């Protein structure tokens, strides 16, 4: 892999990351707070690529010494491509792999983690118990997060939920017995550590929806509890009054 090819790969990588971080696309993969760092590093990558191309097209030949050094560098880079291929480490060849994340971002653009990942992992509620739960905000129905509802239902035994109507957004996944459940993934860093929060649906649950369909459900606290077969954690239920299909939210994770 010569220097021009490296520059093109870096340009593509920087461009792909920049594109993803200037749209909402990066939110499918990482936390919102990473955005400025993504933009900064993407600009740096593009700058390095441009400077490499500029340096290559305008070789420094002001002094004889510099020109010799430059041609020596050229030889070394070529040496990687042809020379010690079999032994040691294949230095720049491994750089070809950097095309894969570029293709992943520009051509494939995979969706946020959904029902498949939710089925693979156990509900992650056990990780965040709070000591006390503040009263719900105003509103009827009051819009709260899936994680918030689940923690209040399990750790607060529904006390702070009372008889209030709550509105939750999540996607449909398949529960242990094939019935639809409501799930939302939570992230702490990137999708590699994404874990699901699962809710059972009692009352009038959404039917006939494909997994990964996003829904808005309105309902009340239910004291019914199931166990997640994956990790034996408790899955609370919601008594559903109504539901409607919605578009995937801009921020797919909680």
């Amino acid at each position, binding site marked *: 892999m010569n220097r021009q*090819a490296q*520059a*093109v*790969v*870096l340009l593509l*990588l920087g461009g792909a*990351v920049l594109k993803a971080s200037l749209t909402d696309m990066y939110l*499918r*993969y*990482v936390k919102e707070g*990473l955005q400025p*760092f*993504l933009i*900064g*590093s993407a600009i*740096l990558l593009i700058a*390095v690529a441009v*400077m490499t191309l500029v*340096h290559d097209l305008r070789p*420094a030949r002001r002094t004889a010494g*510099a020109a010799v*050094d430059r041609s*020596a*560098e050229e030889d070394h*880079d070529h040496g*990687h*491509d*042809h020379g010690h291929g079999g032994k*040691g*480490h294949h*230095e*720049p060849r*491994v*750089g070809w792999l*950097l*095309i*894969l*994340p570029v*293709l*992943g*971002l520009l*051509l*494939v653009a*995979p969706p*946020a*983690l959904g029902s498949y990942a939710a089925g*693979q*992992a156990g509900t*992650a509620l*056990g990780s965040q118990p709070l000591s006390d739960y503040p009263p719900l905000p105003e509103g009827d129905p009051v819009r709260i997060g899936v994680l918030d509802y689940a923690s209040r239902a399990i750790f607060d035994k529904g006390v702070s939920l009372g008889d209030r109507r709550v509105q939750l957004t999540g996607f449909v996944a398949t529960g242990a017995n094939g019935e639809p459940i409501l799930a939302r993934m939570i992230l*702490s*860093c*990137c*999708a*590699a*550590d994404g*874990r699901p929060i699962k809710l059972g649906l009692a009352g009038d649950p959404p039917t006939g929806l494909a997994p990964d369909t996003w829904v808005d459900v309105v309902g009340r606290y239910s004291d019914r509890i199931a166990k997640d*077969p*994956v990790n034996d*954690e408790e899955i609370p239920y919601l008594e559903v009054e109504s539901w409607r299909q919605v578009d995937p939210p801009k921020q797919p994770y909680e």
Partner: protein
Amino acid sequence: MFGDRIGSVEVLAGLLILLVVFRGPVADAISGPRLQTWTTVFVSVMVQAVPFLVFGVVLSAVIAVFVPRTFWAKALPKHPALAVPVASCAGVILPGCECGAVPIAGSLIRRGVTPAAALAFLLAAPAINPIVLTATAVAFPQNPEMVVGRGVASLIVAMLMGWLWLRLGRADWIRLPHRPDLDGLSKGRAFFSAVRHDVVHAGGFLVLGAMAAACINVLVPERWLQTLADNPILSVLALAVLAVLLSICSEADAFVAASLSQFSLTARLTFLVVGPMVDLKLISMQAGVFGRRFAFRFAPATFAVAVLVAVGVGAVVF
């Protein structure tokens, strides 16, 4: 490898054209839920790591180009055995995850820092920086001793590995990749040349590691872990191995450890101590930056020391 008439740029251009033309079939081929999840995890590991990789590489290029060799001789104690703890504690000032630390450690060795100190820094930096310890405190609100245990155990492992390297390490195991000779170039040229080389090189190995981590993420169902959680010895080993396989960044692993609530606190501490020091993407990057002979000795040794120290510290604090 492609002959002299067809250069890398032409190959690259041809490859990209083919992929754009066959975009539809390529997208269809990975539309199954399992492959799609694999792609999501792979892309997200890369996206998450890119800023840390780039800033780590830039810092290492600054070390290589702008910091004079004499600085390190003055900054670190002369005796290598004393330089190790100093370098370990210096890890506190680098709030990042492990992808950035590898090229920095490579750059330190190039600039004449004793490998033992640079390796201690490599192990300590991702594990004991303030961001990681704060994340641990947030993830374990009921167990503040987890933060202390993690900091202490990680520091001990980093120092032990540094000293172990002084006793047993051999200089010829480390084979830093050939980097274009920076002397004789202007500072600006040398800087961009170093950054370009290191991003392509370390980044390529990061891709390998991210692919491995995505495979584990998709292929190993959490259900398997459940059966191991009840046995005290197996649970420690299971989480230590899981930390290696999952390759989660050190700023997030505390939240994952907290969610593995069926495991003992000692097992989860082991997960937190091993993860930032040995994991698939780190092994891949270390093999790239320091050479395979190094990585295949250093990673297992670090793993063993980290597990033993974590269990020992766990016995004291919990």
